[in-house]
């Protein structure tokens, strides 16, 4: 009864208001685009300098000059606009995006986000635009499995991985439940195949 990544993406898409300007992070968040209603008027931003980004380009239509933040060839929708990196990140940092959807290693109960570095001393640090998105978008939605492969919770009292942003996450979409992070509390919005009590136990967190 837990959700797969497509079902999670559909839940996120459902919560994106019509006409919103949205950035979908690299990886699973890009799946959200498949679930946006064609008439929603949602406009996608890609941090490498474009608004009104369309779906991935079919192989034979790939244009090396038209890629998304994950360096995947994409397409252009009517009403598109291109801009340079300083303008693109001014848009992000200045709070003009309505929503961004990001993956995460960990989210804390106060909305801290860890999604850029495992803390492994051997790992090569690489942050990209994650920190700019985390602090910039009006609403930050995280999409992740609730537990890591080793069974440890990813919604935690305090992140143990290096932070991407402090107190920036508003909602968390997982395979087992969706949450609202208010800063003061974590509120369970929906659960999938698990009770709130069970969830609270497994996470060892007070939930509302």
């Amino acid at each position: 009864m837990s959700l797969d990544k497509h079902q999670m993406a559909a839940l996120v898409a459902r919560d994106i208001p019509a006409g919103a300007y949205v950035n979908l992070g690299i990886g699973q968040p890009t799946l959200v685009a498949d679930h946006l209603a064609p008439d929603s008027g949602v406009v996608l931003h890609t941090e490498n300098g474009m608004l009104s980004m369309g779906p991935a380009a079919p192989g034979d239509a790939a244009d090396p000059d038209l890629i998304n933040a994950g360096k995947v060839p994409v397409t252009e929708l009517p009403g598109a606009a291109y801009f340079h990196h300083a303008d693109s990140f001014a848009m992000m940092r200045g709070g003009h995006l309505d929503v961004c959807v990001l993956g995460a290693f960990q989210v804390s109960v106060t909305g801290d986000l860890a999604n850029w570095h495992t803390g492994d001393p051997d790992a090569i640090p690489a942050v990209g635009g994650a920190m700019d998105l985390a602090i910039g978008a009006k609403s930050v939605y995280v999409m992740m499995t609730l537990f890591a492969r080793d069974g440890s919770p990813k919604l935690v009292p305090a992140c143990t991985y290096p932070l991407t942003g402090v107190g920036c996450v508003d909602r968390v979409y997982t395979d087992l439940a969706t949450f609202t992070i208010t800063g003061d509390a974590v509120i369970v919005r929906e659960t999938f195949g698990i009770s709130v009590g069970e969830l609270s136990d497994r996470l060892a967190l007070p939930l509302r």
Partner: protein
Amino acid sequence: MSVTICDTAAQAVAGVSDGSTVLVGGFGLAGMPVQLIEALIEQGATGLTVVSNNAGNGDTGLAALLAQGRVRKVMCSFPRQADSYIFDDLYRSGRIELEVIPQGTLAERIRAGGAGIGAFYSPTGVGTPLAQGRETRELDGRTYVLEYPITGDVALIGAHRSDRLGNLVYRKTARNFGPVMATAAALVAAQVSEVVATGALDPEAVVTPGIYVDRVVAV
């Protein structure tokens, strides 16, 4: 969120509150959103702070708003002009407050407001009366003055064309302050000469993406 294509300039300025900070585009008359200002005069908001390069010309537009006593304070680079007599009179009689800001600092402070920059160090004006008493800092052997962002509750700008997503293009030197002001206000209203179909503007030539624009009216 989505732009609203308005039928009238009145719709485009509806809801402006007393005491608002209003960014007004234009350099002289180029890019001046004359019809939006006229609509704001009709609309009635008062106690305004106006941020603009100039402080009104002749009897119309910004000058007319000033003449009605609706502006508490002007932040601008160049109030004094051959035909700025309405402002001049208000200023000399102590009925309006003035903050003079170097033109590039004005533009950059508005940009900072739109770009989420908390403050920045500028070399402009250092050692002049406009930097007196202000925080300065030596960086790499040069002295800079700390400048703070400017944001508006409302921006009124003049552009050339809009599509139905609110993407804007400008015309020649009428571009001036419009693009930065559009990034720095809670409510951005643009008057344009024409609203075209979405897809009719060259995506490489869009200057203000629709994300920044709330209301558009063709005048």
